[in-house]
């Protein structure tokens, strides 16, 4: 059944039957508060920052928020000429590509492993949920400590295991800093993705696997041709939820390295904050924050469309 046909179709006749003028407008009034609130908190600020992004607005220069058509694209031109911005954008793209893919592959593997566990499934699921108790700021703090060169758990463990006595400056060296941030991000996001894929795997009908057994299919073939395709809707739910939160990496990076040293771990979100909030260059900051909106939108639209497709086919 497609998701569309699940919605109740309310014929006009029925509204007339209840004999109230307001009933036809019922959906409208129910939606109104949500949309008004979102318009104020999201819609208006977005439009305003779009406007500001075309002006040279700086807090300490009065009158600098006036719109002048001849220089309206200057912020965007400057940004793309700015090596730090280019670096931050590049870092962000690599960061998103690596974390989202690795996370998904690891979650897929872990969910298949957990689905085969014969004992203590409940306890294992609780254990799996432990990273979910950590807010992004806490994840950032935790890994900042673990990867600390002097007192960090990672270096202590490496020296206790006899791997190396060196005090590796994880968060300072390139590309170790980026890798540390990716590890923290994956640690934080792995449980939710795994739990959704595990729920999907456990809900697959058993008959198909029995039929495959009769045909003598190997474990890999069963995974490749039955489990994996049937998990598609769950995959896209997981990725859609994940895509809504890509910018949460900001919290982690802000606490672990704050984009430093020397912009080595600068992501577009940390750079916006530095430019706009700390240097009060609101015009430039708004131009860049608009670019972050576009990145998030691309992610969400892509995964959401896949999700809708998968739902209708499934």
């Amino acid at each position, binding site marked *: 059944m497609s998701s569309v046909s699940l919605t109740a179709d309310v014929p006009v006749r029925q509204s007339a039957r209840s004999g109230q003028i307001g009933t036809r407008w019922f959906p409208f009034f129910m939606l109104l508060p949500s949309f008004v609130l979102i318009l104020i908190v999201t819609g208006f600020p977005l439009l305003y920052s779009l406007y500001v992004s075309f002006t040279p607005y700086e807090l300490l220069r009065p009158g600098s928020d006036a719109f002048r058509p001849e220089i309206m694209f200057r912020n965007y031109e400057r940004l793309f000429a700015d090596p730090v911005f280019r670096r931050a954008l590049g870092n962000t793209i690599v960061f998103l590509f690596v974390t989202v893919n690795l996370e998904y592959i690891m979650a897929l593997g872990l969910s298949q492993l957990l689905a085969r566990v014969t004992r203590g499934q409940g306890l294992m699921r609780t254990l*799996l949920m432990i990273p979910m108790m950590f807010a992004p700021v806490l994840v950032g703090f935790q890994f900042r400590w673990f990867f600390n060169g002097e007192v960090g758990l990672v270096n202590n463990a490496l020296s206790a295991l006899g791997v190396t006595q060196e005090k590796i400056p994880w968060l300072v060296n390139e590309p170790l800093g980026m890798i540390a941030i990716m590890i923290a991000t994956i640690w934080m996001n792995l449980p939710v993705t795994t739990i959704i894929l595990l*729920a999907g795997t456990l*809900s697959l009908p058993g008959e198909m696997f029995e039929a495959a057994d009769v045909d003598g299919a190997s474990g890999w073939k069963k995974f490749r041709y039955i489990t994996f395709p049937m998990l598609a809707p769950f995959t896209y739910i997981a990725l859609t939820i994940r895509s809504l939160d890509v910018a949460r990496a900001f919290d982690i990076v802000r606490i672990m390295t704050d984009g430093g040293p020397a912009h080595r771990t600068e992501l577009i979100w940390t750079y916006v904050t530095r430019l706009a909030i700390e240097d009060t260059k609101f015009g430039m900051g708004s131009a860049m924050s608009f670019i972050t909106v576009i990145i998030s939108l691309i992610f969400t639209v892509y995964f959401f469309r896949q999700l809708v497709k998968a739902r209708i086919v499934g």
Partner: protein
Amino acid sequence: MITSVSPRRRLNNALTNGLAWLVLIALALPALWIVLTAFRPNSEINASPPVWIPQEFTLDAFATMFGLNPDVRQRVAVERYLFNSLVVSLSSTVVAVFVGTLAGYVFSRFKFRFHTLAFLLLMFSRSVPGVALSLPLFLLFTKLGLVNNLFGLAFVYVAINIPFTVWLMDGFFRQIPYDLTEAAYIDGCGYWSAFWRVDLPLSLPGLTTAAIFAFLASWNEFQIASVLTRSNDARTFPPGLFVFTEQFTVDWRGMCAMSVIMMVPAIVFVILTQRNLVRGLTFGAIKG
């Protein structure tokens, strides 16, 4: 049921179980380390070579945090942050869940023009990163005098939490058979009373899940709070934690203790929603 398990199969199972335990323990270990550290004496934490197995248990870190330790004068206003966080999270959760449930109900039960478009718009608004919102909101709130104001922050959190509430509640309402709503109409209920008396009570587990998600999202939010709150009057826990890390010397144990306190609501959440969580997030895929 009698099944004969071959030795090979048994070995296979043992390997699977062992591997699963290994992976999960490795995942949970960092978290465990943070919690353990909060209850250890500083001498043990800073020891070199490191003491791996905790020897002593102490609540010292918590005493220091709340100012009960006479040796430590300087500290951050943890209780103030906690109070602010609680006020903002609780109030925004109540409003967001109420408002979002109204919208979610309409999306699940009615067909109207722009149904899909309206739903997509809601989801898009959720995907706008906090960084992009915090800056214009800061400018706007400066003009309105809402910076450093608990009400202002709660207002923002309401709007941010609505889309996910709508998405969850839309799913939960879809699981309630439409026959029940229809029966209510036949018995003379209008749309509102059918919603209020029939569908809403039946969606109670969904409401709980949505409320917990909204609460945690507000409780954990850092980016917007760090921009919109500038002093202890309105600073919530996550930016407060950040202030703590920015201090001259980082007190790692104190940070662990703060982490433990901040995690309490999340722990309650995981215990409460073990089952509902998965169902709530994946209903669409199962229903097809």
